């Protein structure tokens, strides 16, 4: 007798739960999946290019933070009406200023060496412009990253105190 009542209670509760939850309907799922897949279709980024972008981002960001490179995720997603590049980076540790400066110096040395090599050999103009472009994006990324990085170093300093 008790079982019948509990069963009855559960079914009624289940009914209300179903209506409460209202899982995302098939239509919305279809729309969202389609939007994402169409964005991927429409962008002409090949998997190779995507891989290159990923590697360059890792190179750039690892100057400031130590991260779990294998767990880095890079995906296209829908953000409102626009396409967004979603980058998720598991950060292990933020580097301090001294480390960053040291790396910058090392990089500058490398670049100088590279430039020396370039001036020695004849290089088509295309590559020059490409390099300029890369430098530009580097600068932009630097700017956007600096504040947060400064915060972090400040925090570490405070802890030290």
């Amino acid at each position, binding site marked *: 007798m008790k079982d019948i009542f509990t069963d009855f209670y559960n079914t009624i509760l289940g009914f209300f739960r179903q209506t409460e939850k209202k899982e995302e*309907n*098939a*239509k*919305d799922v*279809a*729309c969202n*999946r*389609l*939007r994402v*897949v*169409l964005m991927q*279709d*429409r962008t002409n980024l090949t998997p190779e290019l995507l891989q290159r972008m990923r590697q360059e981002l890792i190179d750039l960001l690892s100057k400031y933070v130590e991260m779990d490179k294998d767990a880095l995720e890079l995906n296209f997603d829908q953000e409102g009406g626009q396409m967004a590049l979603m980058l998720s980076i598991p950060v292990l540790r933020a580097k301090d200023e001294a480390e960053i400066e040291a790396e910058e110096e090392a990089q500058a040395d490398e670049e100088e060496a590279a430039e020396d090599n370039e001036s020695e050999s004849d290089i088509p103009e295309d590559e020059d412009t490409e390099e300029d472009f890369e430098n530009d994006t580097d600068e932009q990324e630097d700017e956007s990253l600096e504040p947060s990085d400064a915060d972090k170093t400040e925090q570490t300093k405070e802890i030290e105190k």
Partner: protein
Amino acid sequence: MQLCVEPNQSQAKKIKGETMSGRVIVITSGKGGVGKTTTNANIGTALARAGKKVVMIDTDLGLRNLDLLLGLENRIVYTIVDVVEGRCKLKQALVKDKKNPNLCLLAAAQTRDKSAVTEEQLKDICEELKKDFDFILVDCPAGIEQGFQNAVAGASEAIVVTTPEMSAVRDADRIIGLLEAKEEIKSYKLLINRVRPNLIKSNDMMSVEDVVEILSADLIGIIPEDTGIITSTNKGEPIVNDEKSLAGQAYKNVARRIIGEDVPFLNLEEDTSVLAKVKKFFSGLMGKEK
């Protein structure tokens, strides 16, 4: 009423011996099985019924079907390949419709593959037909390979057929991308086929608005799913000839929009369930029309 005026106009043109400059419209979809050929047969028939001179070209070499939908399969003597290879004149290869003398078909060859006709040859055929017809409807094969390139070659307008299903919409998006890259294609319109109002209402199917928004293309027609399509195909009789059919009405509206009339889209949202009919009946009795 306007429809009655149209035949006289085209006849007048013929009498004066003016050369027409027909519109070449390619009907394409990317995905197979969404209703390209059905759309072609019905729009063509509807345009002819409205008094326009129409020729349909089946470019699906090796997989021809347009002849079946029109019930003309037994009348085909020459095909487009015979024209291209010089075995007959273009006019000899045109098959006249049984009922409507305004309607002609240039059939595809069933025994050859897509390479039997080139883009240039199709362009030439379209140019030639433009002189004698108001509309040249090109039925495009599925896919984005040479068959598609051929079919699009001579056209300046396109109708992209899709259904409210993910795979069809995705392929339509791809086709739209390809059409936009073609200079000759001046405009393209979207036709959404096999719309099922009940499924849309229960949020199980993407709505017409969803598809239009995702593809961001202009709409030229909404065709409801109609079992009558199956019987009409079996009989070789386009559904626009069935006055009672909703899909037929929708296709006729598409034809009128192509001609340039401003026709509102059919309201498919109307509830056709038994309960709704009962409600309607009673509300009718009570004298308060909803």
